[in-house]
């Protein structure tokens, strides 16, 4: 506690060694009169840094989304209308890298920053200055990616998976991407260390691990996954870099290397990465559904075990991304069985959410709509994942639009919808204002409809055999591609409406928000709305904590 509190106060400040746990909030505010750009550039406050993360993620979401629309515009009709094939490949590559590393992951880290200390009763994240650094590494990384579009040879064009030897052929844009990935990786590792330390050491009195909010659990497990695999990715791209420039032969058969080695390393990172983007979503949904069902979360402990099982299994299934590489039958069978096994804990989670809703007193505010949308569509993505796990079927689906459909169901309707749900759920706490429920619901239904119009036809395209990452396609794929392109533009337009909703809420929304607008039982709702700059400087009273546990049926 005291170490973390110290970190909150700028060095050399007279109050630093005072441990003034009893000082009031107004007094505290006065210490942090940083204004203008300094407030953000020197930010050590978890809420400020969380806000920075969230706006950064949204900016990258718009940039990556614009690239997606560039892709969909080209694919609206057969033939090449807008882009040269090289540039098309740069668009698909940057769209993937930016959405995964620039939008989804920072958004979850931002939410963890904002909400974890509030939810577990901590005054801030454990390492406040490292927190600043882990955020401020992101904009330079993003700039590297964007600038790379304008260097000779253009941006990386080997797909977000960066498979060699194609990625060894690329121009300097590939080096920009490699350095960007290094920076993003360092940022993720530091963010994760912060989350692990905060969750393990700074919980409110009486809050044992098995009484934490589920979002804290999923953030904790996600952080461990990231610490385990981010260095693996860094190693893989460093080997690419030395193969490109320093004459090594890690991935070149001519020198005794193996291009497939990269794929093994990449997917040893890449599959846990899938859960890095999914587990926090599970946590958010596990907060939202009980609140709007007015019931405790069903099967809290099995939820924790399911999350942990998914995390452990995620290290043993990377081969399913490589069924077409040519593996011995035993390896195919091993990876197929392990992958299918993931359906069990994932199923447990879905059943738990539905059991939470069963016999509840449901209401359907925007966060709940997004949570239900998440459960439905994530399950569709899970089912297509099950289809893909069957190695012989994967022979037909590998590198087709079926895979594109599958992972967009998991990442857009999964991760992104959960993020939208989280934003609407916690906006009152962040801004002190209520958002417009009508506008929120409109955003939900608009996104829901156009998401499905965009991505559902891609299942058919994949079944019929359309390969992914092609700028032009045979004529039999025209109809579904046109439908998907129309859906994508409408979906994209809807996200500008989301931006409008958020700004409208910041500027007052439809009125002031009470401290606990949803009558939820976790600790973030015990502080006023908007949350003061500093919260829980003295740990929450144990009686208050236990009252919340009783309401969540974690304690009797």
């Amino acid at each position, binding site marked *: 506690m005291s170490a973390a509190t110290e970190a909150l106060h700028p060095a050399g400040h007279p109050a630093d060694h005072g441990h003034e746990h009893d000082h009031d909030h107004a007094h505290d505010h006065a210490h942090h009169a940083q204004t203008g750009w300094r407030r953000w550039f020197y930010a050590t406050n978890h809420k400020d840094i969380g806000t920075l993360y969230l706006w950064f993620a949204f900016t990258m979401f718009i940039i990556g989304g614009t690239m997606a629309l560039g892709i969909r515009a080209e694919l609206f*009709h*057969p*033939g*090449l209308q*807008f882009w040269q*094939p090289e540039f098309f*490949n740069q668009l698909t590559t940057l769209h993937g890298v930016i959405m995964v590393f620039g939008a989804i992951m920072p958004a979850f880290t931002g939410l963890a920053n904002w909400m974890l200390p509030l939810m577990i009763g901590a005054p801030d994240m454990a390492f406040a200055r490292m927190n600043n650094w882990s955020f401020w590494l992101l904009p330079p990384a993003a700039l590297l990616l964007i600038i790379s579009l304008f260097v000779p040879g253009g941006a990386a064009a*080997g797909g977000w998976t960066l498979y060699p*030897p*194609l990625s060894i*052929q690329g121009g300097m844009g590939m080096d920009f991407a490699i350095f960007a990935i290094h920076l993003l990786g360092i940022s993720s590792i530091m963010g994760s260390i912060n989350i692990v330390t905060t969750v393990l050491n700074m919980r409110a009195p009486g809050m044992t691990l098995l009484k934490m909010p589920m979002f804290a659990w999923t953030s904790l497990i996600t952080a461990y996954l990231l610490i385990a695999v981010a260095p693996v990715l860094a190693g893989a791209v460093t080997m690419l870099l030395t193969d490109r420039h320093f004459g090594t032969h890690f991935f070149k*058969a*001519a020198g005794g290397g193996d*291009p497939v080695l990269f794929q093994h390393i990449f997917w040893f990172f890449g599959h846990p990465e899938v859960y890095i983007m999914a587990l926090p979503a599970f946590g958010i949904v596990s907060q939202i559904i009980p609140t709007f069902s*007015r*019931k405790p*979360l*069903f*099967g809290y402990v099995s939820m924790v075990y399911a999350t942990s099982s998914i995390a452990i299994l995620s290290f043993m299934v990377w081969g399913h991304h490589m069924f*077409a590489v*040519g593996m011995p*039958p035993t390896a*195919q*069978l091993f990876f*197929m*069985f392990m992958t*299918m*096994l993931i*359906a*069990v804990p994932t199923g447990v989670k*879905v*059943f738990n959410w539905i*059991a939470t*809703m069963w*016999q509840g*007193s*449901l209401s359907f505010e925007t966060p709940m709509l997004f949570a239900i949308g998440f459960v*439905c569509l994530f*399950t569709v993505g899970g089912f297509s994942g*099950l*289809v893909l796990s*069957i190695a*012989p*079927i994967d*022979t*037909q689906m*590998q*590198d*087709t639009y079926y895979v594109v459909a599958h992972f967009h169901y998991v990442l857009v309707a999964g991760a992104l919808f959960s993020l939208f749900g989280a934003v609407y759920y916690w906006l009152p706490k962040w801004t002190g204002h209520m958002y417009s429920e009508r506008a929120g619901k409109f955003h939900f239904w608009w996104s829901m409809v156009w998401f*499905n119009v965009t991505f559902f036809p891609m299942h*058919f395209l994949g*079944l*019929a*055999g359309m*390969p*992914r*990452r*092609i700028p032009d*396609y045979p*004529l039999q794929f025209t109809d579904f591609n046109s439908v998907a392109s129309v859906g994508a533009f409408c979906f994209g337009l809807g996200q500008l409406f989301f931006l409008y909703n958020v700004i409208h809420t910041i500027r007052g929304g439809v009125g002031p928000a009470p401290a606990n607008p949803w009558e939820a039982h976790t600790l973030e709702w015990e502080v006023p709305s908007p949350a003061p700059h500093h919260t829980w400087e003295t740990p929450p009273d144990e009686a208050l904590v236990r009252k919340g546990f009783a309401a969540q049926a974690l304690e009797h």
Partner: protein
Amino acid sequence: MRVWRSGALLALSSSFACANSKFDFQPPQTLIAHDIRDLHTWIMLMIVVIFCAVFGVMFYAIFKHRRSLGHEAKPFHENTVVEILWTLIPALILVGMAWPAAKVVLAQKDSHDATLTIKATGYQWFWGYDYLDSGFGYKSKLVTPRSQIENYKSAGDAKGEHYLLEVDEPLVVPEKTKVRILTTSNDVIHSWAMPAFGVKQDAIPGFIRDTWFRAETTGVFRGQCSELCGRDHGFMPIVVKVVSQAEYKAWVSKKQADAKAAADDPNKVWTKDDLIARGQKVYEANCAACHKADGHGGGPFPALAGSKIATGPIDGHVHIVLTGKGAMPAWNGLSDTEIAAVVTYERNSFGNKVGDFIQPKDVKAARK
């Protein structure tokens, strides 16, 4: 919405009946592709049933257990029996899916005892095929004109029926024959995919991977490179023409002759010594197995040393090489140059000292 989605899924599974659907796999042409489609149908049916059951429960709750209807929450939050059941039942269902799938995996991976082996090499951005058993190979490139593809300034030429799926020379294979495809690459990773055969195998530079198929019917089947390989990844189709066994044999002979004709200029005028040197190689590759390296034959195979044919008139010698006799096959698959060389060699080796020789153009004349 639920109705719409499950309806779409049902449509997906029932569309298996229609041939050449835009919704479904290409019509399967091999047993493996059939197995894959059946496996997919079986799994989709289970998925639709599970989806309807699970989301039926959820939507029942959504419509009946809502606050606006005055429904009061019942704060139960665990039930060990239910939780064990919904862990075990899905696990059992998965076994029901894994068992048939594993059988197909094993069948798919068994490339033993292939009748024919063809090497498919990925290039940026076309395919090369080498018929390893028959000693020829060729490149297979997209023929869709750029004027159909590039529509930057105008709509371009009208796109043909097989836009982006047409090549100058398709891979030709006989029907009802187990064909083993060895994949490799000249540059980056490509992937040789033929959906109608249930085949997709990455082509990895510096390594050889294999896959196989046995096409049951004749016809032309089309696929595309399925691993991002750079600029023209979308423009390197794979076309397989399955023909009858007889057609295949004729095609191979023609390709072999073409290949050999292409290898040597048939109009070149050779010296005797050059022909003898070349002829020795041809002899060792084709004739020595029976007639022996020293030309003395063995068992049923006659000696060439001192034989009437090899020391008699040269026309008769060429004739027997071209048409065969008894146990000796016709060697008309050899090129004119090879036949001229080997005949010259035989007439001037093993102690034969006829001293004459023949030019390839004369062999060509003798073929008629």
